[in-house]
């Protein structure tokens, strides 16, 4: 099947009319090229947007309290309220399949007043009272020292973990950070570690300007009592937070004496839902890429099939001679099929190669000119390339099938009849 003579013949046939072969090949080449480019552009968009999500655990919701809009159990509407620490326990008890529940408190914020002092330097930073689990929900890399632990929580230690951005603002270059003290709204905290976060907003600078202290110490130092500002809740893998968020909210509503039907009293942001929405958008984009690419490819394949039919027609007499000399009809069929597959694969490979080169060029342009919003590292995976090759082989087979069939229908006697 794969002997030298067979290949020699395939090449002879395909090279006997270069111009026609190249025109035919172009259809398939173009189809696969479009497919690759569309898929990689989709991937680039996906990478760009996924970058904005950063490393954050996506099966997570954030939940905060607002004001009630319904009277309930004698309490008026328009009442503001705060979550309490026992709400956390209530959720933990009543809602299964939760991985982390992190109550959080917060000081400062965007454009806030300077709230942190160290010697002569001051700065405005977000200060969070947190539990150790927060590092798994909002991942960060500890660059020196350590993060929070439960001893810090239980003993209400006045310690802090500061971002690299805070360090740059409050310390001179080369100064020892771990073990030093900073004053947050007049309260001294000892710095025990520094962190760095992957960006989940544009340039990622805001993320480096945060300070984490133990939740309990925060409450004590800043007189928050049992108040909880908001919560970050992550569900177990395999259970989407979206599917259990109503249950969570009804637990806190009941605990805080809020009417069960009061939709406005508890605010939330469902990261998972957003993430899914984006994911399905990419699914749709991929579908469009395959749809368009394969349609273009199909017209190329039809072109190949057409040319192969013409080739068979032109070679009717030759096929007749070969059959008179005793060639097996199957061998002739195989010959036509192989010509078609070979042509398809070669032109497809050229399309894939050019596609890869264009992607490479775009990537190096992106590298040179810095990042672009919502677009990063367009690429196609190896599996897509293998998939494309499989599509090509199947296309080649399909393209060759009808011509091969018509080739073995040639009766030697009809082909040989002299005019």
């Amino acid at each position, binding site marked *: 099947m794969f002997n030298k003579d067979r290949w020699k013949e395939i090449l002879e046939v395909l090279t006997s009319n270069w111009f026609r072969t190249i025109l035919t090949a172009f259809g398939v080449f173009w189809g696969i090229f479009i497919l690759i480019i569309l898929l990689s552009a989709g991937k680039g968009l996906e990478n760009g947007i996924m970058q904005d999500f950063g490393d954050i655990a996506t099966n997570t919701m954030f939940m905060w309290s607002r004001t009630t809009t319904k009277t309930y159990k004698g309490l008026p509407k328009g009442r503001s309220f705060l979550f309490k620490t026992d709400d956390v326990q209530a959720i933990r008890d009543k809602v299964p399949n939760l991985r982390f529940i992190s109550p959080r408190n917060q000081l400062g914020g965007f454009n806030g007043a300077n709230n942190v002092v160290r010697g002569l330097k001051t700065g405005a930073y977000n200060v969070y009272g947190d539990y150790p689990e927060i590092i798994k929900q909002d991942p960060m890399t500890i660059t020196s020292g350590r993060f929070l632990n439960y001893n810090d929580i239980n003993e209400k230690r006045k310690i802090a973990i500061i971002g690299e951005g805070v360090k740059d603002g409050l310390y001179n270059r080369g100064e020892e950070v771990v073990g030093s003290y900073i004053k947050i709204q007049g309260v001294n905290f000892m710095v025990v570690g520094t962190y760095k976060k992957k960006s989940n907003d544009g340039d990622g600078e805001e993320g480096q300007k945060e300070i984490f202290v133990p939740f309990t110490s925060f409450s004590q130092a800043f007189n928050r009592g049992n108040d909880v500002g908001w919560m970050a809740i992550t569900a177990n893998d395999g259970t989407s937070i979206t599917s259990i968020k109503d249950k969570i909210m009804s637990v806190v509503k009941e605990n805080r004496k809020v009417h069960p039907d009061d939709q406005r009293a508890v605010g939330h942001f469902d990261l998972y839902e957003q993430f899914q929405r984006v994911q399905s958008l990419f699914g749709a984009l991929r579908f469009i890429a395959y749809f368009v690419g394969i349609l273009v490819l199909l017209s190329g394949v039809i072109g190949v099939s057409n040319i192969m039919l013409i080739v068979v027609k032109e070679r009717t007499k030759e096929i007749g001679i070969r059959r008179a000399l005793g*060639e097996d009809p199957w061998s002739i069929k195989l010959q036509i099929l192989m010509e078609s597959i070979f042509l398809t694969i070669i032109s497809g490979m050229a399309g894939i190669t050019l596609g890869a080169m264009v992607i490479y060029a775009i990537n190096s342009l992106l590298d040179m000119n810095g990042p672009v919003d919502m677009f990063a590292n367009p690429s196609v995976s190896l599996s897509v390339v293998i998939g494309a090759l499989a599509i090509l082989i199947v296309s080649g087979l399909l393209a060759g099938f009808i011509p091969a069939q018509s080739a073995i229908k040639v009766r030697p006697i009809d082909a040989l009849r002299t005019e």
Partner: protein
Amino acid sequence: MIEIKDLHKSYKMGNNKLHVLKGLNFSIAEGELVAIMGSSGSGKSTLLNILGMLDELDEGSYTLDGVPIKNLNETKAAQYRNKFLGFVFQSFNLINYKSAMENVALPLYYQKVPRKEREEKALKYLGQVGLKEWADHLPNELSGGQKQRVAIARAMAAEPKVLLADEPTGALDSKTSYEVMDLIQKINDNGNTILVVTHEEDIAHMCKRIVHLKDGVIVEDKMVEQVRAEQYV
């Protein structure tokens, strides 16, 4: 070698049926050199095609070297053609993008003879028809007589039991025709069975037996004194 009994063949032409062969009986022994003659449309090519398994008979029987030839599927027919028969056509029917040597080697290729052996054999047969130096030439670089000699070499390459030639000299001038007949006679001298369809009396008399067809029946079947072609070359 060849045994034909009550052979009928007709072609459908729309509603009409054209009865071409109307009950032929004859047999050909090994080593015979037979000319088939007859006017145009008398069914000579039809007969030869049936003998060559390129076409099927309607009625009667055909036995080739003791093997009954009937109801062959295409694969089987191809095998039999390859093993038993060599063809020479009026219009040569060489494959024009293959060199003389490759053309001669084709039947061996279909027998899956290894490349080296194939080429050696092809060269040997090209040598026998006197075209060794032309082995690498394409058919369109050869004269008509040379083409026909390549075709004869190709027909002989698979060492068939029977050589079937349909007007092998039809497209050649008389001198070249005699050269080709000389070749055919020499192949026959080696014991090969050969059938030659021809229009020309002088070519027919270079065979050993003449079968005359007319309107689909054999009107004459006679042995003749063979005229050697050599003397005219």
